[in-house]
């Protein structure tokens, strides 16, 4: 157990203590107890950064968990893990600080729930990025889905919160399940090589061999499904806008900066395995680009600030995803120089990941401030806040400019690199890029135009225009300092990374690239990750200028299309699939349930009997198991004939007797005759028991149906039902056929019975001469103990039913 194991577990441990602290120190905001956790973890993790420009040291440590199944809690810290871990803890610390001022410590505010879920998420997310074992990763992955859903439903009295929580849960968990199947396939594939493993690094080391496996493509698709649902890629993105019902700190943290990037992480982590494959390249790039386009186009018609940011997040995640897809071509070895050309895309992906976390985090916090101080997030009600909230205004100016890709902020740099990546992808002719490659820059450019437009909407509708106090619930004013500090920190990071991008170059970006693209470099070499502001008058710059020009043009004419259906329908049309699908599932399962749950005992018994008959018949036919052996039959003595004929006659007459007492007596006769059979077949204990039980049973029956006067009225008319008859005869035949076959096989196989043991040892080990009794009280004493327990429960049930009479609907 190293310190690194503890990193992922620490939030969980604190989460256990939080409820007690909440109860004990009610007047202190619980957030203050939580804040040290991410802060200390962040400081601890920073030590692993290669600050001196040297190569990063990779840390690995294993604790055996379920070694027999190959499940070990292995922490593995390389550049990629470190990048994410720093994001999780860093943004986490800021978000916790922000939440302390955002969610007031009121009487009925369940702060303990909030922070327990948040810590749970933090720990699980750290677990996802630090685990090397696929099963451990999966467990943590599902905990992030769960805690995300719980946080969305934090204000669970709101119907929309519950809807959003359920939706995010269903979609991400379904994806996670697909991912689990993918992991299982990987395990099977490595198993075929003779060394089944869940370790990601070991699997990657087999990449060359695994590529030939027929399961390679299914595994890839299943894992991508998990990544796409988590990272809100088209068409699974529909859960993210509804997740905005969560408190804003949660949206800033989970649904823009960290959790939705888990899918990005997964794709990046598996790039060494799947990268270089045409399917991977096209799916990841295609889905990413399309999501980017879809998200940015959808964003411009939103009226809610958080919805705009939600669709913007979807779009930006698409951007990062497509960059990872483009960059994966670097691992295609057949083309010389592919590595250097395509690695630019990976560089851009990582850089943009960091940038997005900073500017989108700050923007979410700003929106939260606006919501907090004015009481609304509707852009139709807002306006003119520039003068009233100058600090908030400045922060959002920086964030939005970065999001729109304007110089000199970090968003500009990564957007330029994104254009470079798409443009360069056309130059190489692999994966049929030469025919369709021109689409990449075109789609990227269009999406960027829309990004620019929604950025302008976000900015101008909120801060410029006319201040409309009559539409607001509260008097707008500047937020308290505590709410402002976290976004200020993030905004200053935006500026710092914008001016000095190379602060990140060799500390974070290069180690992360090394883990995404291993094997491209020789030992000790580093990627060329220097980021420059000025590349000369190249196509990328002209693309940016065109984006600004077109974006402004469209924005100015936006009012003209305000009344079109496109702008009127805010909800994503794809939601119809989810809503109708869910409804269909519920009504469908109700129908199926109603179909089989008829409420009739007879039907339930019939299902079971028909299944049993079918199963046994099928087994007999399949294995051709029917045998018979009438060779050495013993002679049946005449008295046995008489007993058996009476039993059969009595049994068959039973259904036809409509008189109650007669049927009880007939049943008694059968019971006593069975006892007689036990005598004949040399089972004295059985015979005694059967005799006594039968006596008691007859008394019981008579008591229940004669002793009590009200029951005399029962008049049972046997209802002849041909189907019942067929099933019962079938049941009897199945028993007979099975019995005869077993009897024949018994003669064939000459099995020694386990009873020999009891016969030999009942005196020696049990000290008794009556073997049956010795078996009951000694050898199989546990059975007998449980048997009397069952009897006692039955007796108590009887007492409960009669003595503690409860009317319908009554409760204990």
């Amino acid at each position, binding site marked *: 157990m190293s310190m690194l194991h503890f990193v992922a577990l620490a939030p969980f441990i604190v989460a256990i203590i939080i409820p007690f602290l909440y109860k004990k120190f009610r007047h202190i905001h619980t957030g203050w107890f939580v804040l040290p956790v991410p802060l200390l973890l962040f400081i601890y993790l920073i030590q692993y950064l290669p600050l001196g420009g040297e190569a990063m040291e990779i840390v690995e440590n294993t604790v055996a968990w379920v070694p027999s199944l190959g499940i070990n809690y292995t922490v593995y810290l390389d550049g990629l893990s470190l990048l994410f871990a720093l994001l999780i803890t860093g943004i986490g610390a800021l978000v916790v600080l922000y939440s302390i001022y955002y969610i007031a410590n009121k009487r009925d505010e369940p702060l303990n729930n909030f922070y327990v879920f948040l810590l749970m998420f933090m720990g699980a997310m750290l677990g996802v990025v630090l685990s090397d074992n696929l099963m451990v990763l999966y467990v943590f992955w599902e905990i992030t889905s769960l805690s995300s859903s719980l946080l969305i439903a934090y204000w669970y009295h709101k119907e929309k919160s519950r809807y959003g929580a359920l939706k995010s849960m269903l979609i991400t968990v379904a994806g996670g399940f697909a991912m689990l199947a993918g992991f299982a396939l990987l395990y099977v594939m490595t198993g075929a090589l003779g060394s089944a493993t869940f370790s990601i690094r070991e699997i990657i080391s087999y990449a060359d061999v695994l590529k030939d496996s027929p399961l390679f493509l299914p595994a890839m698709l299943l894992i991508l499904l998990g990544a796409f649902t988590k990272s809100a890629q088209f068409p699974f993105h529909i859960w993210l806008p509804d997740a905005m019902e969560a408190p804003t700190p949660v949206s800033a943290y989970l649904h823009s900066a960290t959790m939705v990037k888990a899918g990005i992480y997964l794709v990046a982590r598996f790039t060494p395995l799947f990268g270089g494959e045409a399917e991977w390249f096209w799916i990841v790039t295609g889905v990413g680009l399309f999501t980017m386009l879809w998200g940015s186009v959808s964003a411009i018609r939103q009226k809610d600030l958080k919805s705009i940011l939600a669709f913007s997040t979807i779009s930006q995640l698409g951007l990062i995803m497509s960059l990872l897809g483009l960059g994966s071509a670097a691992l295609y070895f057949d083309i010389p120089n592919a590595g250097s050309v395509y690695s630019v895309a990976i560089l851009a992906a990582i850089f943009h990941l960091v940038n997005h976390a900073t500017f989108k985090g700050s923007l979410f916090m700003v929106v939260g401030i606006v919501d907090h101080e004015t009481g609304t997030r509707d852009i139709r009600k807002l306006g003119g806040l520039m003068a009233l909230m100058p600090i908030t205004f400045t922060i959002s100016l920086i964030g939005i400019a970065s999001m729109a890709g304007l110089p000199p902020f970090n968003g500009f740099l990564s957007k330029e690199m994104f254009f470079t990546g798409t443009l360069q992808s056309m130059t190489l002719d692999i994966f049929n890029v030469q025919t369709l490659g021109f689409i990449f820059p075109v789609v990227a450019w269009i999406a960027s135009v829309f990004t620019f437009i929604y950025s302008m909407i976000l900015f101008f509708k909120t801060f410029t225009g006319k201040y409309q106090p009559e539409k607001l619930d509260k008097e707008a004013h500047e937020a308290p300092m505590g709410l402002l500090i976290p976004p200020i920190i993030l905004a200053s990071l935006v500026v710092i990374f914008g001016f000095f991008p190379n602060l990140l170059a060799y500390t974070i970006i290069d180690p992360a690239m090394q883990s995404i693209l291993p094997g491209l470099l020789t030992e000790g070499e580093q990627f060329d990750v220097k980021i420059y502001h000025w590349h000369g008058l190249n196509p990328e710059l002209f693309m940016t200028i065109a984006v600004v020009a077109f974006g402004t043009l469209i924005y100015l004419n936006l009012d003209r299309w305000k009344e079109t259906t496109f702008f009127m329908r805010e909800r994503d049309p794809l939601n119809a699939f989810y809503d109708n699908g869910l409804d269909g599932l519920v009504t469908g399962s109700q129908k199926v349930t109603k179909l089989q749950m008829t409420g009739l005992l007879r039907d339930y018994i019939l299902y079971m009997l028909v299944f049993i008959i079918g199963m046994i018949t099928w087994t007999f036919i399949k294995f051709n198991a029917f045998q018979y052996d009438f060779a050495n039959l013993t002679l049946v003595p005449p008295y046995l004939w008489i007993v058996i004929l009476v039993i*059969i006659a009595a049994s068959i007459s039973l259904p036809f007797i409509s008189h109650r007492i007669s049927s009880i007596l007939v049943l008694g006769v059968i019971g006593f005759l069975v006892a007689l059979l*036990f005598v004949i077949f040399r089972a004295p204990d*059985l015979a005694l028991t059967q005799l006594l039980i039968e006596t008691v049973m007859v008394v*019981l029956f008579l008591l229940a149906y004669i002793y009590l006067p*009200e029951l005399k009225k029962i008049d049972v008319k046997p209802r002849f039902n041909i189907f019942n008859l067929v099933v*019962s005869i079938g049941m009897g035949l199945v028993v007979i056929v099975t*019995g005869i076959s077993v009897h024949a096989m018994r003669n064939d196989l000459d099995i020694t019975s386990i*009873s020999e043991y009891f016969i030999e040892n009942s005196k020696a080990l049990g000290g008794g001469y009556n*073997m049956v009794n010795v078996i009951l009280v000694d050898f199989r004493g546990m059975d007998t103990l449980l*048997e009397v327990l069952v009897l006692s429960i039955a007796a108590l049930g009887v007492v409960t039913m009669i003595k503690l009479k409860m009317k319908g609907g009554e409760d204990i």
Partner: protein
Amino acid sequence: MEILMIVTAGIIISVSTYLLLTRSILRVVFGIVLLSHGVHLLILTMAGLMGGSPPLLTEDASSYTDPLPQALILTAIVISFGVTAFVLVLGYRTYKEHKTDDLDQLRGNGDE
């Protein structure tokens, strides 16, 4: 003799199945009792009949009847007594509550 016993058990099980499928609770209880008889006979037969003297070492015989199925059946007899008593009282109480022992009339509502 074994074949005869198997057929007998089959017939008993057949009749008990038919009783289980009827509408009257009392007959269902009869069915359960009869079913346990059939199964007990079947188990006993499967172990082999008349294979020796009763499973008492005091008999001092060269071969004994298989004691294990007898122990199993003994347990089963007592358990089936408990089950029968329980089901019987259940039916009795149902009749007193609902004034009917017709299972078709006792079926619940659609949304239950």
